[in-house]
């Protein structure tokens, strides 16, 4: 009685050994590092590594090690000062094909990482960083799609002169016809050539038809906008230089962006949410802007724009080229020490720029900065989206000579504005405006405070429980303590294996499991005591104690498990982090508190003649 077969013991030890091994990486700290990766499709190679090594040694920078891991060059440093100065050096020397980011690299020995050993990843609340939830303005996407279909529909029906008039109304395109025959002809044409447009229910009249965008085409347009925005955001984040960013779709219209370790969150906000571009237009020199304002009549082919300080100017409606034709942009200081942005256009943009500057030599050309914004405002207690579009002239200068695809623009307020504009032009524009609807930023100082406090409270709570158990249950208490320690190791090991993210509520979940894992052992021990009191044989008491408590433990834990799985499925953010560790903790505690503790008790008391139990 009370004897486990040898294979059972071996299996338990084997399991614990493996679990212990995978918990091990968490004991090693991490190095300050710089991570260099390729942006876009570019992968860094050994050649890049050699180049970087040379750059650093040319500048006399001492580093701990440099290696190529998972298509990243990782340089480890001994102190943060060298790390920061090296980042500046590398950022200057490397082209924009590379993303240079500060990072923390785990210093796990080769043999361990070779087996796939990884440390738990720390959540933003423990390492510091920003979490954004962005919402794409889907109404704007629908409007844009409707504009596009309006043009296509008109082009399609114009071929055979089928329509009389087309107008937009809400989400409908209303087409009127001269005769019913033409209407039926149009129906056929649209069905074949523009299948994304369907006749809206109840809109058909004798000489009129209403089209709407089909549900699938609308969903496609929305998904397309979402994906396009994710790509643009990824480019922008790369430009910001963030290691291990997370940019993920959430639901059908939201994007989660997590930037660990970002310190300048104000800048991150400016960059991520900005829907900005520039346009180049000629100044209308023939008409006077003041007369246009006073008479309230703008000359045909022109429109009134304003400088940031409010000065009006008449600009031609024809656009020379826009931000979409920009392939590269960088900020610098011009000869007068004014902030400027150097621009490189693609071939079609360059061609039209060349034509324009040739034709209008000596005239003025204006650069217009366009920004779309969406904000939620409260109107009578209801949240409403408010869209604003600002169009400011940043510069209107006389064309001094012809140029095509390379030139500079000036007139920016500050170097920071120039840097941001250059970055936005490089990274591409968002296909639809986005709004930040949730932000959670944890500064680096709070992050390290949280780790420290979390660790201390776990250790102190744990120590208190160990002392209490040893005092109350003596030898059995020590066994329970061993099981509890193994439980903690097992939880850490599994969290590391599945690479779950450890957050502060997650630590709270672990602490709670420690408290609750003891419960299983308490149940067993109290039951054994009871059995001994009813004067059963000691060996029989141990065996019955485990047996009878098992069902109770299972019932109690399964109900708690139901609660924690529900938390996991419906919870968000902190609740989820808590539920993950609680779920894992409940399951592992069943293993350690029942099976492992039994194995140890069996080894101590099993098969021996015991007069009295130290319980």
């Amino acid at each position, binding site marked *: 009685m009370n004897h486990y077969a040898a294979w059972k013991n071996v299996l338990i030890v084997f399991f614990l050994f493996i679990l212990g091994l995978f918990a091990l990486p968490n004991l090693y700290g991490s190095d300050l590092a710089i991570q260099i990766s390729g942006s876009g499709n570019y992968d860094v190679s050994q050649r890049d590594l050699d180049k970087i090594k040379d750059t650093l040694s040319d500048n006399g920078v001492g580093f701990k090690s440099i290696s190529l891991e998972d298509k990243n060059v990782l340089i480890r440093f001994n102190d943060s000062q060298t790390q920061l100065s090296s980042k500046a050096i590398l950022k200057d020397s490397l082209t924009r094909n590379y993303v240079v980011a500060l990072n923390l690299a785990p210093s796990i020995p080769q043999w361990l990482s070779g087996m796939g050993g990884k440390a738990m990843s720390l959540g933003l609340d423990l390492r510091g960083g920003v979490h954004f939830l962005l919402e794409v303005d889907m109404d704007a996407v629908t409007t844009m799609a409707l504009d596009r279909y309006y043009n296509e529909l008109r082009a399609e029906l114009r071929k055979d002169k089928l329509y009389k008039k087309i107008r937009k109304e809400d989400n409908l395109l209303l087409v009127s016809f001269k005769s019913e025959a033409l209407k039926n002809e149009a129906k056929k044409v649209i069905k074949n050539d523009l299948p994304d447009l369907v006749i809206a229910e109840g809109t058909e009249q004798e000489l009129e038809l209403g089209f709407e965008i089909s549900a699938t085409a609308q969903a496609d347009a929305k998904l397309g906008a979402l994906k396009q925005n994710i790509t643009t955001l990824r480019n922008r984040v790369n430009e910001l230089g963030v290691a291990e960013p997370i940019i993920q779709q959430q639901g059908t219209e939201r994007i989660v962006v997590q930037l660990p370790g970002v310190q300048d*969150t*104000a800048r991150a906000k400016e960059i991520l949410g900005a829907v900005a571009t520039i346009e180049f237009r000629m100044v209308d020199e023939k008409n006077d802007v003041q007369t246009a304002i006073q008479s309230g009549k703008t000359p045909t082919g022109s429109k009134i724009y304003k400088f940031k300080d409010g000065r009006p100017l008449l600009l031609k409606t024809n656009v020379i080229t826009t931000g979409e034709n920009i392939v590269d942009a960088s900020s610098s200081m011009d000869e007068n020490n004014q902030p400027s942005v150097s621009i490189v256009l693609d071939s079609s943009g360059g061609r039209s720029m060349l034509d324009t500057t040739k034709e209008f030599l000596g005239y003025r050309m204006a650069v217009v900065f366009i920004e779309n914004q969406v*904000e939620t*405002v409260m109107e009578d207690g209801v949240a409403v989206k408010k869209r604003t579009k600002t169009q400011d002239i940043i510069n209107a200068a006389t064309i001094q000579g012809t140029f095509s695809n390379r030139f500079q623009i000036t007139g920016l307020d500050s170097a920071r504005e120039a840097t941001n504009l250059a970055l936005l032009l490089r990274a591409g524009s968002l296909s639809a405006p986005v709004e930040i609807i*949730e932000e959670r930023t944890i500064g680096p100082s709070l992050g390290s405070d949280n780790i420290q406090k979390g660790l201390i409270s776990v250790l102190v709570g744990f120590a208190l429980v160990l002392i209490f158990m040893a005092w*109350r249950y003596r030898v059995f208490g020590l066994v329970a303590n061993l099981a509890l320690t193994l439980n903690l190791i097992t939880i850490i090991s599994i969290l590391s294996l599945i690479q779950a993210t450890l957050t502060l509520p997650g630590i709270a979940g672990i602490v709670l499991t420690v408290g609750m894992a003891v419960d299983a052992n308490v*149940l067993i021990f109290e039951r054994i005591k009871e059995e001994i009191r009813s004067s059963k044989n000691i060996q029989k008491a141990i065996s019955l104690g485990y047996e009878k408590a098992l069902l109770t433990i299972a*019932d109690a834990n399964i109900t708690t498990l139901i609660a924690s799985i529900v938390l996991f499925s*419906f919870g*968000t953010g902190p609740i989820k982090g808590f539920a993950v560790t609680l779920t894992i903790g409940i399951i592992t505690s069943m293993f350690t508190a029942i099976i492992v503790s039994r194995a140890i008790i069996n080894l101590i008391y099993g098969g021996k003649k015991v007069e009295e139990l130290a319980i």
Partner: protein
Amino acid sequence: MSLRSLNIPVIDFVGKRKIALIFSAILLIASIASLGLQGLKFGIDFTGGTLIELGYEKTADLENIRTKLAEAQYEGANVQYFGSDTEVLIQLEPQATSSAKLSSSIIRMLGDGIDVRRVEFVGPKVGEELTNDGGLAMLYALIGILIYVAFRFEYRFALGSIAAIVHDVIITLGVFSILQIEFDLTVLAAILAVIGYSLNDTIVVFDRIRENFLATRHVEPEPIVNEALNQTLSRTIMTSLTTLLVLLALFYLGGEVINSFAGALIVGVVIGTYSSIYVASSMILALGISKEDMLPSEKEKKEIDARP
């Protein structure tokens, strides 16, 4: 064999259940009254708004910060020390224009050299969603538990455990309402953990009641329930104490962010321990549990009898 012959002190829990009923009623009425009258002090997770935690090198001048915020015409700003007098927590209600930019402009306005420890912005729509999701999570957890307990035990036990849970949740919420402690997402997680914990305790007692019903020839439910409560008493106390030890460590050492989380759990564990002894068992006694209910049903019995 009676418990007394085993030198175990026998406490007449069941006999005192009238007193417990009055005690629970008082707590529940106070909680519900407070929840109804002043409600919970919801944090920005649910109301939406902006929260900024700042670290100053020296003692922060709250008046100065308040004046600056008032001058800039921010509505409903709440400025207070957080943990120590070098740390400041600024909370803003949702403004006419809610945007994530708000925090940046406030930080810029307050000047350089301040350590930005935490910024949270929750848009009005998100707050609403989090409230709904939180409520739903609670509801689903209760339904899941109800089904499992009804399936494993009997419907009266399921009702008893739900009664205990509702009792615990209302009183824990009541404490948060009476003391006007901020109720945020982590506190919601704690409340859900309280459900799990309270249930754990209740199930252990129920398990023993069922076992005792099946093991004895007594048919009177009261002494059987009382015996089960006494038998599980030392376990109930031990487990509550170990859990409380850990929670106290969290409460005092875990830092401000985790403080209300630990607080909610401490209240919940104390109430949960009490309710598993008094509320859950009183409920099943009131619902009229008997030995017959514990036995296999008539149909199952026939099947067993029919076996050769």
